[in-house]
Every structure is written in C-alpha cells, then in structure tokens.
C-alpha cells in the first residue's frame, strides 16, 4: 500500500489522463503541433539558397572555360538551365525573371587568365531576390578544386571549414532545437489550461475542500504531461531523421533525460501561469507571452551572441535557451549530459523554483 500523499498524487494523475483521453482536440494537438511546426520550420523557413535558375554564356569555349562552368554547376547553388547566345540575351532572361543569375565568359577568356589585372569572367545576379546574392557571390569566391589556372590571383589565406554541418544546412541547425520550441509551445499551455479549466468549471472549489495538498495536486498534474512531452520529442526526432537527415551523434538516453528535465521545467512554468490566470483565455495569452521571447531569444533561430547584454540576461532565464544548448550538444556534437552540466543545472534550478513558486502561490483557498 502506497503512503497517502502518493496515492492522492496518483489519483490526480489518473484523473488527468482520463480527461485527456476524452478530449479529442487535445489529443490531435499532441500530434498535430509537432508535425505542423516541422513543416513550417523545416521546409517553409530555409536560409539555404539552392538551385537558383541561371544561364551561362561561354564565348571562349575552351577547355578551361568549360571546366570553370562545370565547377560552379557542381556546387548546386545554381542550375544552368539556359544557354543564351550573347550578353544581351542573358540580360533579357534575367529581366523577364526566367533566370536569376548569369555567368558571362568573354571571348578573350584565355588572355585574361594570364593577365592578373583583368577579371576572367562576369557573374550577373538578380538583386531583387532575397538570399540569391549572398549565395551566388559565395560560390564565385570559394576556391573550388577544379578551378585550375587561377592560383596566382585568388587562393584565400584562410580555409573555411564548417564542422558538424559541413553542408551548412539550416535543417540540421533548426530541427533539434525545434524539439524544445514545440515542447514549450504545447507543455506550457496544456498545464496552464489544465488547472485554470478546473477553476473555471468550479471543480477547484470542491478539490480544495478535500485532503489533497497543493504540492500533491501540482506534481499529480505534471506527471501525465511529462509522458505527452516525451511522445512529442520522439515524433520530432523521428521526423528529423527521416525527413531532414539530421544525424543523432549522442546517446538517446542522455537526450531523453534532458528532454524530461526540460519538460518538467516548462510544465512548472505552466503551473505558475495557472496560479496567475483567472480564465483559460488569460492562460493562453500568458502562455504565448512567454513563448515569444523563448523563440526569439533562445538561439533557436537567431544567434544571440550579437544581442545586447540585457537580452542575453533575459535569455538566461528562459528554459528553452538551456535546452537548445543541450539538444545541439547531444544530437549534433555527440556531447554527454556530463559535459553539458551547466545548462542541465540551470534547468534543474528553474524546475525547482517554478514548482515551489506554483505550490506557494496556489493556496487552498478561493480568495
């Protein structure tokens, strides 16, 4: 026979699970939110510019010029889909929007290769399209191995080498962190609403006249949602591997332990919100109010290294900041939780403070 506090906690958790299983919309959200988010952030928002439609004019048509074209095409940043006859036609295609970039190799290409004072070729870019300029400019500057005969002029002093994401794909950076964003989104709002709903429907007036203690009520309500959060984590992880080829370099156990800690911390925040909000609508609003800074400041999508100091302090208070750190560490860099002890500790402190604050704020009284 379990001791009374544990039995009451279990009673709350079982009741919560039962109610959850009857709420079809909530169940749909458990699966729907992660999938929608994956689609939006994984496919919809993409800073990688690839397969830019381009044209090439090769008036030299020598061995070296053909090799230069093949070389640039192999980067896949541009696809040479048009071969206009001259510079004028190339420009016309860009104006009409059929292509967004063009490579022009003049007839005196071979002479220019020897003459270091004059450019060998010209790249024309449609400046009206975001992202294209940076991407295409980058490939013309890169020292590609097949670009023989340019050694004297263009070899850069520093070799650029991007580790853990050599192709510099946004999905690899975003998808692991997306686990944290999705959990923040669903967990805070689920718990906040779970308690506020009972207040709104009058259940709380009955519940607080029973022997259930505040802390038992809080923990009992958290437990089922930790399970829901771990299911969501799995969903995003599987989708990330299958759809976006995200490598999982670290241990799954570390990953789930970290996720469990973050889920509990986020749920704690939800409970605090639920002690402040009087209606479900207010709980939703407060949930989104904490969500926005989490998404913008956690380093999930925007690097916060460049942010002002105050903003960096705010970011430190957000559990998502530390979880994004843990996620990228474990999933991409193969780090262990031991190596990531600092963000783990910060999350744990947040969890304890949040649950304590919620239990203190939640008096077993109506006034």
């Amino acid at each position: 026979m379990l001791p009374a506090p544990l039995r009451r906690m279990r009673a709350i958790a079982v009741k919560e699970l039962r109610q959850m299983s009857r709420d079809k919309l909530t169940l749909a959200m458990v699966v729907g939110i992660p999938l929608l988010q994956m689609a939006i952030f994984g496919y919809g928002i993409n800073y990688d510019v690839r397969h830019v439609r381009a044209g090439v004019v090769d008036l030299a048509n020598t061995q070296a010029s053909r090799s230069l074209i093949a070389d640039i095409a192999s980067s896949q940043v541009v696809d040479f889909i048009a071969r206009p006859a001259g510079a004028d036609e190339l420009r016309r295609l860009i104006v009409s929007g059929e292509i967004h970039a063009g490579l022009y190799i003049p007839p005196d290409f071979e002479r220019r290769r020897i003459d270091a004072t004059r450019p060998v070729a010209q790249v024309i870019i449609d400046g009206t399209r975001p992202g294209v300029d940076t991407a295409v400019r980058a490939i013309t500057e890169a020292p590609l191995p097949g670009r023989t005969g340019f050694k004297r002029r263009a070899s850069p002093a520093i070799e650029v080498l991007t580790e853990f994401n050599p192709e510099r794909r946004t999905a690899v950076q975003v998808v692991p962190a997306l686990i944290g964003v999705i959990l923040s989104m669903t967990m805070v709002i689920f718990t906040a609403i779970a308690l506020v709903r009972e207040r709104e429907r009058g259940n709380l007036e009955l519940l607080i006249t029973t022997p259930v203690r505040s802390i038992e009520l809080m923990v009992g309500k958290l437990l089922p949602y930790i399970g829901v959060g771990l299911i969501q984590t799995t969903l995003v992880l599987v989708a990330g591997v299958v759809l976006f080829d995200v490598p999982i370099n670290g241990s799954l156990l570390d990953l789930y332990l970290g996720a469990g800690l973050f889920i509990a911390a986020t749920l704690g925040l939800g409970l605090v919100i639920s002690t402040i909000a009087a209606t479900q609508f207010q709980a939703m609003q407060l949930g989104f109010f904490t969500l926005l800074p989490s998404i913008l400041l956690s380093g999930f999508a925007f690097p916060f290294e460049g942010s002002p100091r105050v903003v960096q302090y705010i970011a430190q208070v957000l559990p998502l900041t530390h979880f994004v750190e843990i996620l990228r560490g474990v999933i991409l860099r193969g780090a262990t939780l031991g190596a990531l002890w600092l963000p783990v500790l910060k999350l744990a402190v947040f969890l304890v403070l949040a649950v304590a604050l919620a239990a203190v704020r939640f008096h077993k009284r109506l006034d």
Partner: protein
Amino acid sequence: MNESGAAIEAHGLTRRFGAVVAVDHAELSIPRGRIYGFLGPNGSGKSTTLRMLCGLITPTSGTIRVLGLDIPRQAEALRTLMGYMTQRFSLWEDLSARENLEFMASVYTLEPGHAAQRIGAAVEEYHLAEFFERPAGTLSGGQKQRLALAAATLHQPSLLLLDEPTSAVDPQSRRDFWESLFALTARGTTILVSTHYMDEAERCHALAILDRGRIVANGAPKQLMADLPLQVIEIETEDTVGARAALHGLDSLRSLAQLGLRLHALLAQDVADPVACIESLLAGRGVKARVRRAEASLEDVFVGATLPRAGQEH
C-alpha cells in the same frame, strides 16, 4: 473534541468584498446531529458564510470553531471530517459517475476494499445504477445532485455543508433528497443546508434567516412562526383592487401579498382588533369581503424578518 458541544460556533463573523459587506457580524451556534438551514434571498451571504466555515474564504473578522477546530487555521484537519456540496455542480463532467466517485474515494485515501464497498452502498442509496457509466456532464439536474451528495458522503463525514443542493431539482426528487438527509442525520451527521425554498426551510430542525449579510432571525421553524411579532390577516374578496386601495393608507400594515382572490396582510401588533379595523376600512369604500385571522407561515416569518429596516422602527 467535545462531543456535547456545538458542531459549529461563530462569533462576529464578517466578510467584506471591497465595499460590499457579504456577511455582517453573524453569530452561529449549530448543534450536532441536526439539520440546520440558512434561508435567504440571492446575495444574502449564504454561500460566503458556508465557504468561510469550511476555510475556503478567510473572514475579514470574527472567530469560527468547527468540530472543535479553529478555522481557517486548522482547516486542513477538518478536510476528512467534512463533506461539501458546492452550489454549482463541481464534479468532473468529462468523467463518468463511477470515475468521479472512484477519484473522490482515492483523494480521501479510502482503502481499496472499503472504497468499493462505500461506492456500492452509494449506488444503492442514491440510485446511481442507471447512469453510473455515463459522463457526469450528460446527467439531469436531479441525477447530478444525487451524484454530488454521494461524492460528498463517501468518506462518511460527520459534518455536511450543502449549498442550495436542490435548486435545479423537481419537487419529487427534492422530497427524496430530504429523505436521504434525514437518513444521514439519523446516523449522527450534522447537516448545514442553504436554501431559498420555504418548504425546505420548514423541514430543518432549526434555521437562520439571512438578509443582506445579517442573520435577522433564528430558531426552530415552529418557534419562529409562533413568535412572529406580527398579526396575519386574510381578506377574501372579488374586488381585490378596491380592497388594496382601502388598505393603502393603513400605518400598521407591514406587507400585503395577493394569492388569487385572497389578500394576505401582515399588521403590527399595536392594532388591538385588526379584523374589525380592516372590516371598517373596507366597508368605508364599499368593498365586500371576508376578513379573518390566520396562522403565521414560515413565509410570513421570512417577510417579517426581511422587511425594510426603517419599517421596523415604530
């Protein structure tokens, strides 16, 4: 705990919500093993008083002792001794009747065997079998109320607070409900019930009449009716309009209510022969009527107690 003492004692119990005085210096002494009623109109402070008695709301001032415990300080110790039925249905509407009872049983940490036996007894006693597996939200008013009473009594509390338990219930179900309450008191349970129905108030062993936060009368219903400091006169007439006009200027008239072709009048006690007095007033207007004295009802007590205070000053 002293078994002989009152179940509930309150002195100078007051609660303000901003400018509103919801409960104003209430004095309560409620004996054990009885049904005690709070009778009062909407907003008279019935719910607020009940909530203070179970520690849900802190009094602005005053002291409360419930079953020998100092409330709200010792409210947690009261939890297992007390059952509370809120004015609004407060069980979980998306859980079935059975699941609601099972949940309440585990929250009160009844031993599994004992819980099953208590739930079985409740199904029997409150006729829950026909809707036992249905979500509580789909139940009728009377079914919800039976379920709520079953939930409030699962742990066999010695004190039961019921806030307007029969407001959504037909007269037959109300009678059945009161049978259940008497069965509970027969086993020693103290019951405090709020209502605005006269017939219910009359069933209580004793009651307090609340008006705008104040207890304006209290005692056993029979005693209150006998002690009413007003004279009750009934006037039967075809010409109720004329009769009303004739009585209009009468100083000692405290209240006049019409029931069909009868006028029900409450007069101050300073009128020596009220029947003769009224007959002469009616005759002066040429109104034909039968005038007679009547027994005071609880409604008369209620009306008398809740008259505008200015009217009581003579």
